[in-house]
């Protein structure tokens, strides 16, 4: 295998005008090997090869064209998927990248959802204000519940975050004057920026697409700069990170904050999609479902969060389609879904702990030198 090589410009040498490889050159199988860059900025780009840029264009075009060709049901599914991607990204920042296991995903989504519900319905404030407030409130509460991470790791931290889940659920049920208790808050309006309303499913789709793109780009950039690197360093070896100058506690809290901002935003968007918030949308099974997403998709990988969210979100639909075509229309899809969910998690943990993201990387590696891949 050939590794990518960055050419270091010799200081003092006359600079030649650099010729960039044209796009078709990078598509055809290479005789010479490796990816060459003539500047560090090029080498540090998110997409370093034309093939990967081309894939990105294809995905973008598909995403934009999708609501024009798909039916109402599928557009609704896509909206829910995009919200799940934002939530899974948030959880992966904390669990996959920083190594702080949390089972309070449902609680943090609840904080976001209830914040926007209370602000828009009870107080009558606009969406553009309530959405960032939902994110920031969740970030603050997430950071507070991140304090035990100073002393606790692994399973013990998991139990501490379980406390967060239980406390938030309990507060929602008991603070009836604020949250309407078990009835939940309904009458939430679809997002609107002044006169610009996103009540239509397709309009909502483009708003969600916008948020997903921002969320992905921000996360991708975060993990190629100082703060994201510190997160990963804490996951891999926290003592070495501290000796290299990383204030471990501060960055752990920051990870809880950033992660919770994503999760709270996802919770708020979900509230404006379903138009209701009530306690059962945010119980512990939601937390487990999201943990399943990032395990199946790939811990510590941005694309992994996307694949995992897609896998879990599309699972019920895929299963009911399958049982339908197999003539098993009477099958209880809900039970089947639970079974497949459990099997998928166990299967991935045993056979591919790095998830779908790793499988996809392996496939790309295989075809990189195809058909001479030996």
């Amino acid at each position, binding site marked *: 295998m050939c*590794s*990518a090589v*960055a050419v*270091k410009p010799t200081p003092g040498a006359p600079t030649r005008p650099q010729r960039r490889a044209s796009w078709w050159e990078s598509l055809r199988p290479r005789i010479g090997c490796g990816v060459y860059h003539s500047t*560090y*900025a090029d*080498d*540090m780009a998110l997409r370093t090869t034309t093939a990967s840029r081309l894939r990105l264009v294809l995905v973008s075009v598909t995403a934009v064209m999708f609501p024009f060709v798909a039916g109402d049901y599928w557009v609704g599914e896509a909206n829910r998927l995009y919200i799940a991607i934002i939530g899974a990204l948030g959880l992966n920042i904390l669990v996959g990248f920083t190594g702080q296991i949390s089972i309070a995903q449902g609680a943090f989504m609840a904080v976001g959802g209830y914040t926007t519900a209370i602000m828009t319905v009870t107080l009558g404030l606009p969406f553009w204000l309530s959405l960032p407030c939902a994110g920031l409130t969740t970030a603050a509460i997430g950071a507070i519940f991140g304090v035990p991470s100073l002393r606790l790791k692994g399973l013990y931290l998991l139990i501490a975050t379980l406390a967060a889940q239980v406390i938030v659920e309990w507060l929602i049920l008991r603070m009836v004057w604020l949250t309407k208790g078990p009835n939940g808050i309904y009458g939430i309006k679809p997002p609107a920026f002044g006169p610009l309303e996103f009540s239509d499913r397709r309009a909502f789709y483009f708003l969600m697409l916008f948020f997903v793109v921002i969320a992905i*780009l*921000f*996360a991708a*950039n*975060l993990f*190629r*700069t*100082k*703060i*994201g*690197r*510190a997160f*990963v*360093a804490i*996951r*891999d*070896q926290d*003592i*070495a*990170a*501290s*000796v*290299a*100058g*990383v*204030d*471990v506690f501060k960055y752990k809290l*920051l990870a809880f904050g*950033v992660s919770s901002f994503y999760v709270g935003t996802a919770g708020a968007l979900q509230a404006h999609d379903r138009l209701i918030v009530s306690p059962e949308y945010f119980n512990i099974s939601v937390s487990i479902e999201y943990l399943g997403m990032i395990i199946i998709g790939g811990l*510590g990988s941005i694309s992994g969060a996307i694949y995992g969210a897609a896998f879990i979100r599309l699972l019920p639909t895929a299963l009911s389609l399958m049982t339908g075509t197999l003539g098993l229309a009477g099958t209880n899809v809900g039970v089947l879904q639970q079974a497949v969910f459990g099997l998928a998690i166990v299967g991935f943990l045993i056979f591919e702990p790095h998830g779908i993201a790793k499988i996809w990387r392996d496939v790309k590696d295989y075809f990189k030198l195809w058909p001479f891949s030996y």
Partner: protein
Amino acid sequence: MGEHGEVQAVLQRANGQVGSIQLEAQDVHLRFGGVVALAGVSLGVHQGEIAAIIGPNGAGKTSLLNAFSGLYPITSGRLLYDGHDVTRLKPHQIARLGVARTFQNIELFKGMSVLDNLMLGRHIHLKSGLLSSGLYWGAARREEVANREIIEDVIDFLEIEAIRKRTVGTLAYGLQKRVELGRALAMQPRLLLLDEPMAGMNAEEKEDMARFVLDIHEERNVTIVLIEHDMGVVMDISDHVAVLNFGRRIGYGTPDEVRRDPDVIQAYLGEETEPRKATLEPSAVDHAADPRARARG
């Protein structure tokens, strides 16, 4: 023998032969419950020297280094850096003073690439905040590229160009040791603490590592404190050697002085049953560092 070293240090400072004291431990005690790791160690490291800490296994060498870098809060005593009291500082604050270190058992970020490991070494020099990092815009982008150039110099220096994009966990042991040194160098430290940089290496790799240490010392003007069991290396490259045993400093001085020090010889070889002219030659100490040899002695 403690007095001897202090006097030497004072004399040498008076003669202006070496720089001022950069790192100093004053009567440092470190206890974990009933276990005494350090029992009153005093030690001064001069600016611009290579100081070695040696001693049998369990003597407290690594504990002393961990105390210096703030990982173990000491029970009593004082730690001074450039004359300032740093006893209660946290590890990341010590790092900001320009102190870098490596570990006995490699402590790299195994899931990250070599480049990212070195870039993490730049952490204290990077300033971009959450928003500008997330947008990778303007200053954050320029900062990343500028610091990439600095770590490329380190990569050139350590001759690890070919592995710069490899994930660290997949690298061979010797290369990991080198990457860990690289991460410390990326911090552009003024003081480098090396905990057994040559452990588990063959002769050739040891030679390479010794050359790197000397080059770092000379070209980058970095003060170096190293723990090492290979007496050949220690005696060859260090300006001063401190000997620890059971949490106490039993010897201090130039390599030649330490080699002849009767207390040190006793610690390494045990009591003499019959009078014999014993001088500690490098090869002899090599065996002595082996705990089995010590048990026999």
